[in-house]
């Protein structure tokens, strides 16, 4: 998330910055959980649909350089083939295609808390031609952040 977006953002609320040739949506949320748990949730493809209500299915292995196939509730008939472009355990995960990249960033905060930020930038020279056909990501981003927080905190606070 760039600094100008971050300064305007409210926790758990997505922010979208539209430009002529690109669009960037971001959200951040504080999570009371260990980074390892958040990372484990973000990198276990076959488990996504259980906790993430915006995912219909996610197939493949989330490791550096691998391809994954994502079906989202935004467009369940379509399968997005994405490549894992950055994979820095417990810190940063980026996947994407030619259209754009989605980044997941985990920052360790005070005593058992992390700040999770997710952002996606789509764009390119042809972006103005199809920009209107791409639905807003805001609601979906807020849902993912809320789902991740709920699941990670449920795990971390479990007693058994």
């Amino acid at each position, binding site marked *: 998330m760039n600094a100008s977006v971050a300064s305007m953002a409210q926790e758990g609320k997505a922010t979208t910055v539209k430009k002529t040739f690109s669009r960037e949506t971001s959200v951040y949320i504080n999570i009371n959980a260990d980074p*390892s*748990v958040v990372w484990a949730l973000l990198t276990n493809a076959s*488990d996504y649909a*259980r906790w993430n209500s915006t995912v219909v299915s996610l197939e493949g292995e989330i490791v550096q350089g691998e391809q994954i196939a994502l079906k989202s509730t935004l467009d369940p008939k379509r399968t997005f083939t994405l490549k894992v472009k950055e994979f820095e355990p417990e810190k940063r995960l980026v996947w994407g295609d030619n259209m754009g990249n989605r980044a997941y960033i985990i920052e360790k905060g005070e005593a058992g808390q992390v700040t999770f930020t997710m952002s996606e930038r789509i764009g390119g020279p042809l972006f103005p031609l199809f920009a209107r056909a791409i639905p807003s990501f805001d609601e979906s981003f807020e849902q993912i952040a809320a789902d991740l927080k709920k699941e990670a905190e449920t*795990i*971390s606070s479990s007693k*058994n």
Partner: protein
Amino acid sequence: MMTTDNLATEFETFQGELKSFILRMTASAQDAEDIVQETFIKAHSKIDTFRGESSLKTWVFAIASNLTKDMLRAKQRWPENVTDICREAALSNEVFFQQAMQIRQTSPQGKFEIKEHISFCFTCVSKSLPLEQHLALLLKEVYGFKVKEIAEIIDQSDDMVKYYLRVARSKMIEVFDHRCSLINKEGVCYQCTELNGIFNPKQKEQEELVKIKMVRDAEKSSKEELFALRMQILQELDPFESDAAELQLHHLEHNRQVMEKHLTERQ
């Protein structure tokens, strides 16, 4: 301070649990025997490093878990539909059924009991879980270790153990809910009752089934409660000592061999 004499005495008190734990991880009676021996030898040679920060049982289970992980790490996990694949293979294997019938008729540990098969079935299906999740789930649900102890045994943080438990439970609950006809009328797997018909042809199956609380409570209990009842069946059974041990171990060895072949061919 723990001496080698103390070790031998204490080891004996949980050796049975250790062996059944390794069997449930590896699906191999031979591997379970070997790893238990290797664990004792290793514990014996390292006893001076045991500081008493955990119980001896936890410390020994950690050694055994490491040996088990070393053995299983290079092997592929089994698919969720392992019992379907193995059933197909068994149907075309006359020798397997002849041997099984022989055990059924002559061995003091050759009884066929549905609850024993439920335990056997879990051993096969749970091998579809990733290794760390499988270890954590068995240690917690079947062998009663606390999260902190499991964290020591598998050398992970408490939070990661909680994560493994959450994901593993959820996966197993879903798999059995979809597959097991004992708890879901739509379930695709009915091998336990099918085999019961073969091995106990004169038995009234329904009378046997209602003895099992998980089956009795199937309609009124949640998926989670039914999973807990399934785990209770495993807790109460020693797969090496029960009246059905020889028959079930023979079946398990069959499935292990079928899976090794299946996974090799798939590569």
